[in-house]
């Protein structure tokens, strides 16, 4: 703004700052969940019985529904970006709306899953399995929630008079959202299925 | 005012285990290599500082480096360090690899508890009873299996332990609460005591005497005072001491059996600890 520099040559890599930043952030997120998965692998190997027992308590059909749910939201997110890129406003709103809704359903299902556990007297302190289960799914759910905030905001904005047109920004948000789906793709078999 | 020397090597406490000399030698080797490198670098630094200091008429040269030199001073330390690493790995194996564990002449269990060291000797039958964490209570620190007859006569001591000289001692090390570290400076041995696992430590003391046992891993506010004493004795003294302990244990067991027909079969370690400990 106040600079005398001409910054027309930016971004040097040809990748928008935000997108590059998001990819870097996702690399960091991979490491964050890596820490949890490492802990999971190690503790599972030394406590097989506890883990098998814990996994048996989990409600895998509910998780399967949630898996489908997130996959749908990933599809609609990708479609939303495509629609906005091609200036198809109503389809964009439809797809993004579905994405938001899926996120919401995911959290609601998670809520029921958690409360069901609590009502059975199962808490993070119940065993190392549940400690990890609640931490991993909890952080994942927080990520879902965090993603829904900008999604909701953009959605709301798109209904205003000025609308929302920055599809590249939505693409960045989409990267994040797909990543959240990706984490769940691993959480689902690892926590619920493979024992 | 006090004995002070800039030569680190003079500070070692006297070494009294079979590998303390080898370790000191290794240290010495690395020390002299380091001193050489240190002098090389510092002298060069000072010479350059003096020689190339700014002064009227002095100019720097236009120079960007030299790949040959670069290659040489990459390769030289690589060789030196790799050699050093491979060379010292042997010593590491001797100290740590379980495959290199010598045949034990005597085996004991040691656990750390904030802020004391406890040791368990095999007792009259010469066999340590089975143990498992699930049996552990404040009275049964080692988690001695109450159903194992070998465990009945095991002797538990706190703070001060006796061991025979010139014997391969294997210590099975663990902890009942937080991390501790079993440190015998004179033996040049140190090993963390990790709750939840049993780690083997071995040494062979060569000189009778009383040696201090320290805790080297922060374990709480009393960490600094988690001191023990290792009393390295001749075979004869050790045997006498052991016999006395066994006899005392027998008496305790007999008294227990007589006074109670109750169900407390678990040996009460706390009682014995109180009976036999002489530590601070």
């Amino acid at each position: 703004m106040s600079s005398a520099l001409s910054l027309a040559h930016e971004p040097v890599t040809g990748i928008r700052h935000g997108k590059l930043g998001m990819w870097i952030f996702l690399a960091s997120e991979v490491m964050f969940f890596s820490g949890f998965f490492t802990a999971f692998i190690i503790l599972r190997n030394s406590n097989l019985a506890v883990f098998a027992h814990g996994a048996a308590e989990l409600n895998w059909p509910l998780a399967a529904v949630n898996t489908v749910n997130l996959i749908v939201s990933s599809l609609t997110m990708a479609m939303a970006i495509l629609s906005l890129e091609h200036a198809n406003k109503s389809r964009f709103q439809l797809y993004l709306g579905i994405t938001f809704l899926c996120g919401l359903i995911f959290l609601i299902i998670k809520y029921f899953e958690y409360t069901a556990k609590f009502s059975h007297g199962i808490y993070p302190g119940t065993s190392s399995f549940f400690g990890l289960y609640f931490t991993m799914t909890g952080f994942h759910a927080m990520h879902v929630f965090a993603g829904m905030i900008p999604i909701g905001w953009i959605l709301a904005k798109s209904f205003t008079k000025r609308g929302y047109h920055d599809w590249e920004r939505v693409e960045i948000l989409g990267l994040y959202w797909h990543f959240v789906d990706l984490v769940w793709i691993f959480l689902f078999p690892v926590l619920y299925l493979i024992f | 005012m006090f004995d002070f020397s800039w030569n680190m090597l003079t500070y070692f406490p006297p070494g009294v285990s079979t590998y303390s000399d080898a370790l000191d030698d290794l240290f010495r080797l690395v020390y002299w290599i380091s001193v050489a490198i240190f002098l090389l670098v510092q002298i060069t630094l000072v010479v350059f500082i003096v020689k190339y200091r700014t002064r009227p008429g002095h100019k720097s040269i236009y120079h960007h480096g030299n790949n040959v030199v670069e290659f040489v001073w990459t390769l030289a330390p690589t060789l030196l360090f790799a050699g050093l690493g491979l060379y010292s790995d042997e010593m590491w194996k001797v100290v740590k690899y379980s495959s290199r564990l010598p045949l034990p002449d005597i085996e004991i269990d040691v656990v750390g508890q904030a802020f004391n060291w406890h040791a368990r000797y095999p007792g009259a039958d010469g066999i340590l009873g089975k143990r498992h964490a699930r049996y552990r209570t404040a009275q049964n620190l080692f988690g001695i299996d109450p159903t194992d007859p070998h465990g009945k006569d095991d002797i538990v001591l706190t703070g001060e332990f006796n061991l025979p000289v010139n014997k391969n001692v294997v210590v099975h090390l663990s902890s009942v609460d937080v991390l501790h570290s079993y440190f015998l400076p004179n033996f040049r041995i140190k090993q963390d005591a990790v709750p939840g696992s049993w780690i083997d430590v071995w040494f062979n003391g060569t000189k009778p005497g009383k040696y201090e046992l320290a805790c080297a891993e922060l374990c709480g506010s009393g960490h600094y005072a988690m001191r023990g004493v290792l009393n390295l004795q001749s075979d004869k003294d050790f045997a006498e001491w052991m016999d006395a302990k066994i006899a005392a244990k027998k008496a305790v067991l007999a008294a227990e059996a007589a006074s109670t027909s109750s169900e407390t079969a678990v040996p009460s370690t706390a009682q014995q600890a109180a009976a036999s400990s002489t530590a601070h």
Partner: protein
Amino acid sequence: MGAGLSAAEMQRNYVRVFGALMAFTLLTVIAAKLVHFPESWGDASTVLHVTIGIVIAIMKAWMVVYIFMHIKFDNPYLRVFIYVPLFLFCVLVFALTVLGGPTL
């Protein structure tokens, strides 16, 4: 975007991936819950279950990353951000399980 693919082509890609993801989800559930290996296989059957679950998850993840997240069409340098952390994760797990064994 999309390496010169038209919107329609891109959309077709997405839908295909979506279908594959659904199919794999079904597959992974079937493999875990309905397929039972003979008793006699013992531990090997657990290992097999784990392997199947993980392999399917990796394939799903690959599709999400390559198609949904456009890694396939985007600047190839972006792949670094996937593979480098993945490599480090492998280092960590390899060190702790293979070299470390039960005592880590």
